[in-house]
């Protein structure tokens, strides 16, 4: 009935196993369950297919798969291990499968796999048998038999094959004489070849040419993108600007009118015992907030963390670690004071003694 419909993978496997079991099935202990296998295998495979399950009487299926499974069906891990052990036991004795010990005669399922597997070991070489990487590699190297070979074949060839790992065979061969091409002198000619090789790779073929063009285009796009990040027009005020004549700044006054546009206070005050006009940057040296000038308290006070600065910019309260910074201030040709925001002067570095950092009154 199974042949009438399309065979499932399970069914194909079951059929293959059945044939194998029949081929190897002449040994006495395994013959009975092996014969039972053909009947048992289809029901197992049909279990997922409801149509086939209808056709096959389900009443007899449950008991059967359990018993023949070891011989014809898949082997469990335990059974495989048992088989391996039996194989190991059988080899030294040189005996056939029938000689395999039967530890528990009262349990019929247990002894069966052993003989079956042991026979397989003998019968297998013709059918296919286990293949390991070493044997395949060895065969490939020899070129004798393309494709997989069995363990037994590999074992037979191993003795003659020097490439397999037999310890006594490992004798260091004599070093071959270097050919003239491999001599160090010859290396000098190599770069020229390499360079030509590079050109060939880049432009020699249509594919290379295409990729090169792609890389070039990508690079140009990246450069263009980098250019795009910089605006065409800067609306920032110029870094150099005139703030008025020195006489515009009364002694002791903080001029705040440049704060909004330029971020500068022009202060006319005493620093280190001498009167000077300085351009103070309106950025707190703690975390960069904009402090406020408190006329009543005569101090700059930052609203973020409470840093306080004297009129000359020296820090005295709060967390600011450094005095406010000064911009360069010089007298322009027309007699006005000119502030240059590109130059900064730090008091803690002793830069406020620089003649550019103040205008002496």
């Amino acid at each position, binding site marked *: 009935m199974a042949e009438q419909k399309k065979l499932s993978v399970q069914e194909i496997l079951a059929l293959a196993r059945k044939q194998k079991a029949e081929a190897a099935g002449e040994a006495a202990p395994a013959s009975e369950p092996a014969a039972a296998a053909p009947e048992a295998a289809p029901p197992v495979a049909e279990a997922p297919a409801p149509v086939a399950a209808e056709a096959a009487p389900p009443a007899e299926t449950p008991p059967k798969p359990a018993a023949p499974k070891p011989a014809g069906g898949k082997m469990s891990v335990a059974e495989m291990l048992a088989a391996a052990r039996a194989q190991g036991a059988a080899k030294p004795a040189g005996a056939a499968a029938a000689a395999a010990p039967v530890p528990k005669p009262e349990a019929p399922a247990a002894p069966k796999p052993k003989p079956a597997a042991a026979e397989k070991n003998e019968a297998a070489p013709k059918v296919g048998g286990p293949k390991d990487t070493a044997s395949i590699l060895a065969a490939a190297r020899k070129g004798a038999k393309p494709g997989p070979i069995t363990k037994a074949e590999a074992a037979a060839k191993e003795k003659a094959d020097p490439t397999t790992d037999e310890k006594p065979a490992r004798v260091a061969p004599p070093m071959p004489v270097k050919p003239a091409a491999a001599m160090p002198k010859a290396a000098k000619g190599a770069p020229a070849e390499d360079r030509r090789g590079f050109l060939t790779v880049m432009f020699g073929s249509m594919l290379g040419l295409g990729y090169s063009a792609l890389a070039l285009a990508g690079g140009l796009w990246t450069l263009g993108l980098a250019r795009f990040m910089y605006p065409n027009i800067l609306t920032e005020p110029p870094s150099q600007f005139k703030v008025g004549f020195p006489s515009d700044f009364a002694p002791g006054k903080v001029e705040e009118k440049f*704060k*909004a546009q330029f*971020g500068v206070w022009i202060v006319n005050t005493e620093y280190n015992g001498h009167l000077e006009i300085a351009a103070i940057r*309106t950025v707190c040296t*703690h*975390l960069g*907030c*904009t*402090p*406020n000038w*408190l006329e*009543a*308290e005569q101090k700059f*006070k*930052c*609203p*973020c*963390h*409470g840093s*306080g600065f004297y009129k000359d910019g020296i820090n*005295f*309260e*709060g*967390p600011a*670690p*450094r005095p406010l910074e000064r911009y360069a201030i010089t007298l322009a040709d027309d007699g006005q004071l000119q502030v240059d925001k590109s130059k900064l002067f730090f008091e*803690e*570095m002793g830069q406020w003694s620089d003649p550019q950092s103040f205008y002496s009154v």
Partner: protein
Amino acid sequence: MHGSHADFLARIQLGLGFFYLLLAAMNWVAALLLWRDGPKPYFKLGGITVTNVFAWLIVGGLFLIVAPFAMMGSPPEFSESVKHVINELSGPVTLTVGSLVAMAFLFVFRGWWTKPPIAWLLLNFSLLAMGLAVTDANFFEIVGKPDNVPIVGLVYLLGFFTWLATYKAVINDDRMAQGLPPIEKTEDEKVLVWPDLVYTEMICMVAMTALMLVWALALQAPLEEPASSVKTPNPSKAPWYFLGLQEMLVYYDPWYAGVVLPSIVVFGLMAIPFLDFNKAGNGYYTISQRKFSYIVFQIGFFELWIVLIILGTFLRGPNWNFFGPFEYWDAHKVLAQNNVDLSQYFWGGMLGQGMPKAPAGSGPGMEFLYILWRESPGIILTLAYLVLLPPILAATVFRGFFAKMGLIRFMIMSNLLLLMISLPLKMVLRWTVNLKYIISIPEYFLNF
């Protein structure tokens, strides 16, 4: 500004009246629930046994009497002298030290204040104090800001959860002292995701949505004027959850308080599972089995985070000055805060000489040596704090810890603890002796 005080009271009278009504209702609902469970006697007053139901009925009745007065614009208020005392007490030093003392009190007497009647009484007191305090225009302006209302709610929420956890821990500790398993062990009944958890989540979702709706309708969005690079709002406050960080920045250099210390906090929190050798307390509330962890957490979380958030939200005013809760936020408040570096204290104050300064024209190497020499007191002090203290602790207070943790784990733990404690230490030093930096090397942007 606000005009007269009576105008202000008229402005808030409706809300305040409903607030007192809410307090009355709250107590009566509690009384109702207690009555359903069967009244229990609390105490005896002149031969009459006062039951719990009766007590909370009376408290609710008192609030009900206050409510109409509040609604008519004459609510009970704090007197000026009380406000003055509260203003004085909420100075930074008293606030920090006081909150530490309060935490110690709550820890030692946790068996007492977690009792439901006491906790309920404390809640009533705090809400009553809030009702009395909002009659002050300055207090109302700070607490009633749309930004700050949720923070007040969070403070109460935090109080509730602290009570809940402590309450459960106290019960478990009592049980385990009697040899019983923790209460969570006896409540190991299987709870299903559907419907138990999903229903709970759905109810929470509905309640949360309702709350958000009310919030969105009742409170204005805290929008400010358009941003300007030259005008910083005064005071400029971080989001509430970062106010602890902003407060840290007041005492330390930006790189330290803004980068190094937060990283240490994060890595320290990650290190906790590897430093913790106490296996007790898995899956149940307990305090007595994990005293050390509990105290460290309370100091780190409450003292160094929550108290700083409260301080930053309610007590920091214009120019980042301190203001008492009933104080007017005067942008021209004058505070003497002439901060001095430790090196200035040492060379100028103690030795009476000028600061060591490299002679003019010397190379950068020479200047560097002079800077090191100038800051040597601070450097030595800091190194002693971080290098000498751990072995001393290992030999004295934390002897058992050292034996259990081994050298490396103990050193990491003790250094994390010392760095944590250095924050309040520095704060108190700033407030008391105006210390600015222990190590101050502005030449290399390095201050500590």
